């Protein structure tokens, strides 16, 4: 499949998404594929931009962004890595909270286009944002993500992850990478998640090679349409992961 240019992608997003603020963060308008879009009942192959995860405001992302907006003081003047930025809501919340530097990372370059469009839509400046589509879990890129937190001794440092834990094998890879950054820089790891099995089931928690403790920071009731789409998940939780 031919990949559309970033310019073409940007046009497609503007034409095919709907501006919505029906979420845990009603202060943000986001360009999304919603139940009102014809694409909602389609299959991924009807989108020219492959697998548009950025076109949905997933429950964990909503909870995480809400938490940042409700705890602005924690993020003021901080340095942030938004891992799997998607539609960019957490980066937007970080800018509103006065973060001094944000690395918006998503392996899908179109997610970064969507993030940029959403900043513009909300009249938020993205001058503090650095965009990267690198896969930090690849061995060759690992140092990049560790080095990002260099020279920030006097700052609060965070890695933000919304809806990243679907599969325990992938979770294990993430934990290893996160631990390395936390060990080097004391970076706090914040996770938004509706309690999917890789972070909940004791069998998995026991089996992971990278050990951590999980502290719940907040829990939010999800809007009705989100609950309906997520079959049995009623709340989004925000956790802090502390690696041993």
């Amino acid at each position, binding site marked *: 499949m031919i990949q559309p240019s970033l310019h073409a992608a940007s046009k497609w997003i503007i034409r095919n998404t709907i501006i919505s603020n029906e979420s845990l963060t009603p202060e943000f308008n986001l360009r999304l*594929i919603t*139940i009102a879009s014809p*694409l*909602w*009942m*389609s*299959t*991924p192959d009807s989108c020219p931009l492959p*697998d*548009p*995860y950025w076109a*949905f405001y*997933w429950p964990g992302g909503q909870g995480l962004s809400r938490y940042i907006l409700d705890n602005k003081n924690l993020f003021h003047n901080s340095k942030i890595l938004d891992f799997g930025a998607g539609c960019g809501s957490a980066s937007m919340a970080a800018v509103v909270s006065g973060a001094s530097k944000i690395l918006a990372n998503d392996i899908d370059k179109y997610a970064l286009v969507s993030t940029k469009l959403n900043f513009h839509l909300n009249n938020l400046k993205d001058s503090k944002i650095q965009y990267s589509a690198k896969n930090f879990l690849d061995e060759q890129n690992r140092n990049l993500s560790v080095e990002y937190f260099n020279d920030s001794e006097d700052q609060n440092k965070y890695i933000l992850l919304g809806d990243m834990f*679907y*599969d*325990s*094998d*992938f979770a294990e890879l993430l934990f290893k990478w996160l631990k390395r950054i936390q060990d080097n820089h004391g970076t706090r790891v914040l996770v938004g998640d509706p309690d*999917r*099995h890789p972070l909940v089931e004791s069998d998995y928690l026991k089996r992971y090679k990278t050990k951590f403790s999980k502290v719940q920071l907040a829990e939010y009731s999800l809007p009705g349409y989100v609950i309906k*789409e997520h*079959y*049995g998940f009623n709340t989004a939780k925000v956790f802090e992961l502390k690696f041993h």
Partner: protein
Amino acid sequence: MKILVGVKRVVDYAVKIRVKPDRSGVVTEGVQHSMNPFDEIALEEAVKLKEKKLATEVVAFSLGGPKSQEVLRTALAKGADKAIHVQVSDEEASKLESFHVAKTLKKIVESEKFDAVFLGKQAIDDDSSQTAPILAGLLDWPQALYASKVEEGGDGHMKVKIPFVLSADLRLNEPRYATLPNIMKAKKKPLKAIPIKDLGVDIKPQTETIEVTEPPVRQAGGFVEDVAGLVAKLKEKGFVKA
């Protein structure tokens, strides 16, 4: 409660079935396949129990050739949390019997500690209706077959204790549609593939198909003018006594 749901890849219900020229079976190549509709209903019921917080996890299971993974992805998009594909070749899959499926399900139930197994009341390809009762027998679990309603502690017609095997009737529910976000989420959910030999299940056929034939072509009917004409016709044919 952890629920295992069996989903079978079958020729789509809308396809006109054709018998192979050599009469060894029906044509499956180049034909639209989908999830057995009764299995969709079983899955929907399990997902509903999860939404009501009565079930903690719903895992979809399929025993079949490589393309069985397509129906497992569909099951994940419709609400299953994980999927297990027990792999056989397409050649082996065409000769599988309910007994083999039940034995395989038993292995998975025992190794992964499930509390209930939900199945369709029958698959629309062979119409056997045997997997659920054989499995209940092998596990020595109670069975609720052809279920048209599932209630927790209700005054239903039949009560079963957990663990149990359920087979779903058409009336049980109306399965949901998989929306785009759910199809995308399904791509991230875990699908475990296990070769059948790793489970040590013997799938040697116990039956031999001698011949598959088309049903006789239905004869054209005739019209009668009125009730008197109908009665006269029935008498003429000897269906009513003169």
